Each structure stands twice: as C-alpha cells, then as structure tokens.
C-alpha cells in the first residue's frame, strides 16, 4: 500500500518536473533574446537617439528618428487601408457568409494569412513600385503590409461577430430594424473588444515585418519626404545596420531592435486591456 502511494507520488513529481523542463526550454530562447536586445540596445537609448537622423559614419552621434517616424507612418497608413477592408470583409463573412462564395473567400483568406511575406513584397513591388508609382514609396510599403493585415483583421472580426449571441440580432430585427443597421448599431458594438484586439494584434504583426519593405519602401536616412517617396522603418534599419561593418552602426541597430520590441510589447499590453471584458457579463 505504502509503496504504491510513494510510487504514485514519485510519478506525479517526475511528470511535473518534465512539464517544468519543457516550459523552461520554450521560454529560455525568448528570454535570452530579450536579454540580448536589452543589454545591447539599452545603452543606445537617449533623446537624441530617438529623435535625430543618423549622423556621418564614424561619428557616434546619430539616431533612428527617421526609422521610428517611418514605422509609425507605415502603421498608420497600413491601418487606414487594412482595418476598414478587413472589418468589412469580416462582417460579410460573419453576417452574410452563408454561401459558397464566402466559403471560398474564407479559404483564400486563411491562405493569405500564412502567405510568405516576401512573395507579397515582390508582387507589390512589381505592380505598385514598377507600374503604378514608378519608384520605391511609402504607399507601396503600406499596400504590401495591408495585404498581410487584412486577412488577420477579417478573421478576428468574423470570429468576434460570431460570438455575439443570435438573440441580440433577433431582438433588433424584431423591432423592425434593417439588417445593415442591426449589424452597425447592435452587433458591431457588442463585438467591439474583439475588433480592437484583432486590429492591435495585426498591427503588432506588421510592425516587425521586414521582407516586404525591402522591395517597397527601400529605406533611407531621411525624415518623411512624401507618401510617394522612399521611407525608413525600424525593421529595415535593424536589417541594414546589422550588415554594416561599423560597430557604432551595429550598436544603433540593437537600439532600434529594442525600440521595436518595446513598441510590439506595448501593443500586446494594449490588447490585454482592450480584451478585458468591458462588455463581458
């Protein structure tokens, strides 16, 4: 009796230990990346670093102001295209999507979510950069990132609208409210937390994208020149600086990496607040 109890306790502890080991194995790389980024990036942080353009090579004075500005412009521009299209697609899928066209759209949407970003970049480059605008430009970057944002927003919108109980729709329709008005004034507000979460997650996703930007906004060392002009962005700055042979530029790259990580972390914390149930019962 005693031995079997001791054995059972031992097995319990053993498997608990195994689980713990797996968690450590999963978290350790993440923590070591964070550690590396903070240790190497933190010394770079200063008001000058965050607000000024890069100086001349060899001088340690200089910053990543243009990259931060470019990333923020890019996020804004992408959201301007991606959020309305994504939310409207999601509304179609959830509220009117009981047909084979919507099924096809859902499949394509899922494929697009997993699509290699470099392929999106090269396509947008071939169409927008080469044919329409004729040069590397901020707007081309936003179009490429919007292709990545739309499927995420559409999917999360559909899922959050499906969580709104049907009784709420029926309540509105039974009052003689038109279906579109029911969707806009009753269903969408009820799903607001989910919509905000989906949007912020998609922003976090695109904020770190590099591949599509290389071929669309190119990157430069100037502050904003115009929507039809090349622009810098944080991931691009990290990429370019890491290839440089100069130590101070490499160090600036680490600083840019830390700033990017902080932005993404801030968005994730924002998601937690947004999805904290204001409308949950």
């Amino acid at each position, binding site marked *: 009796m005693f031995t079997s109890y001791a054995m059972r306790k031992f097995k319990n502890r053993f498997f608990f230990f195994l689980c713990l080991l797996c968690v450590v194995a999963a978290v350790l790389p993440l923590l070591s990346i964070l550690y590396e980024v903070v240790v190497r990036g933190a010394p770079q942080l200063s008001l000058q670093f965050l607000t000024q353009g890069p100086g001349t090579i060899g001088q340690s004075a200089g910053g990543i102001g243009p990259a931060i500005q470019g990333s923020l412009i890019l996020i804004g521009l992408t959201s301007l295209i991606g959020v309305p299209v994504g939310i409207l697609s999601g509304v179609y899928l959830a509220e009117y999507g009981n047909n084979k066209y919507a099924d096809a759209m859902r499949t394509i949407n899922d494929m697009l979510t997993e699509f290699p970003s470099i392929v999106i970049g090269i396509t947008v480059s071939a169409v927008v950069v080469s044919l329409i605008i004729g040069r590397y430009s901020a707007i081309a970057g936003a179009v490429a990132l919007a292709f990545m944002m739309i499927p995420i927003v559409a999917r999360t919108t559909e899922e959050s609208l499906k969580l709104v109980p049907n*009784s709420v729709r029926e*309540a509105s329709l*039974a*009052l*003689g409210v*038109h279906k579109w008005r029911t969707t806009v004034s*009753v269903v969408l507000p*009820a799903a607001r937390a989910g919509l905000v979460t989906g949007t912020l997650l998609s922003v976090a996703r695109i904020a770190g994208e590099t591949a599509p930007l290389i071929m669309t906004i190119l990157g430069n060392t100037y502050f904003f020149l115009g929507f039809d002009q090349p622009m810098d962005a944080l991931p691009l700055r990290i990429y370019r600086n890491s290839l440089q042979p100069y130590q101070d530029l490499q160090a600036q790259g680490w600083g840019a990496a830390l700033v990017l990580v902080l932005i993404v972390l801030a968005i994730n914390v924002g998601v937690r607040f947004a999805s904290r149930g204001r409308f949950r019962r």
Partner: protein
Amino acid sequence: MISINDSSEFESMKMRSVGLNAWFGAKQALKDINVAVKANAVTAIIGPSGCGKSTLIRCFNRMHELVPGAKTSGQVLLDGKDIYSGDIDPVMIRRRVGMVFQKPNPFPTMSIYDNVAAGLKLTGMKKGKNLDEVVRRSLEQATLWEEVKNDLNNPGTSISGGQQQRLCIARAIALQPEVILMDEPCSALDPIATARIEELVVQLKNQYTVVIVTHNMQQAARVSDFTAFMYLGRLIEFGDTSSVFENPRSELTEKYITGKFG
C-alpha cells in the same frame, strides 16, 4: 364564443392565418394552420414541446424566414392584408408586430434608456417624438419605471432577469406596435417575476393585441381570452379559453390539459 366556422367574425380579426405551412429545410413544422387573433385580447398558444407554437408566432412577424433554410406557404393576414404578399417589406411588418422572446435579450452594449429608445432610434422613427417621454411611458406601461427611474444610464443587462424581460417588453411597446407576440416570456423567470409579467400581459391588451406562447397551461388559463392548442404542427383546437379548458371538443386537448401527456 368564436369559431373558425363563423366566417364573418373570423374575417374581422386583427390577424389570422389561412392554410399556413412552414418548414425548416425538409422538415414541416406547421401544417395547414387556420387561426385567428382578436384585437385587444390575449390569445394563448399552448401545446407540448416541438408542436410548432413558437414557429407559428414567428410566422406572424416574418421572423421565421430568418432561419437559414426556413420557408412558408399560405397566408397570414394583418388587418385583412397578406403580410407574405410580394410587395410587403418584412421590416415594416415587424414594426407593426412586435416580439418578446423566451430569454430576456436586452442589447448588451446599451443603457436601460437606450434599450427602450433603440427601436425609435434605429428605425429612424424618432423624428418629432420626445424620446424621454416615449421611454418613460413605455417603462411605465411595462411597470418597470418605478424600479429603474434612477438608473436609466446603467447597462440594460445590470437588472434582474424579470426586470430585463419587462425592459424587453418596454422596448417592444416603445414602437407602439399593433400586435405584441410573446414567445414563452416567463420560461426563464422565477414565480414572482412570472406573476408580474402575467399581470402586465392582462394590462397590455387594453392597448395592444397580444399573442402569447406558453407551455404552462395554468398561465394560459389565467391570462388569455382565447386559446389555441397545437400538436405535431397542427392546430387541434381553438376557441374561448374557458371552453377550451372546461369543455374541450377534442379528446387530444382534454388529455393534454389534464396532464395525461406533453
């Protein structure tokens, strides 16, 4: 006493169905229903689960067709005009024929005030109306005003289940419909809340025509003037509540109201 055979009285009814059939996909839920609803009276529809009573009233404001695969045939006449004829917009019918559901379903993102005002706001019918007055009058008619008058800005979901159901009734009557359909409005409520709703139903018939679906026979006997008994998608018996309960013509009705099945 009204009877389906007395055609002159039957035709002057507020609402009636003529040869109404309804399906969910291939399954027929209503079979050849001929029933009438008298103005300013309470008509109860009783019957065991799955007999089609909810489907029947959902056909009365064209909510049935919102279920994917659902269809109907036959007529439903409102003031003598078929609400299923091609030139009728179902949205307009639902403004004239309101509905209260089984489970209280106030709009989760709206305050008590906005829940009551929602019908007028969302249908664009608030023009020339004093919203405050409509909200107050509707809540008073739903006997909820005294309980919530100081909390009008609280969420509609913050009050008790019975209060929420009266809020839903207030929301329906804010549009001043001609007919109010109630789909087992008390089945999610405790006995005290149920008693309040029942009192309210009886009051409402002074201004509105009420149709109430219930699986509770005592409730039908207490609140209704007319009773329809349905079984397996068919209308078995219809008439004065007192005669249906005291002197049923059909053996099936008698078995049901004496609790031998259902």
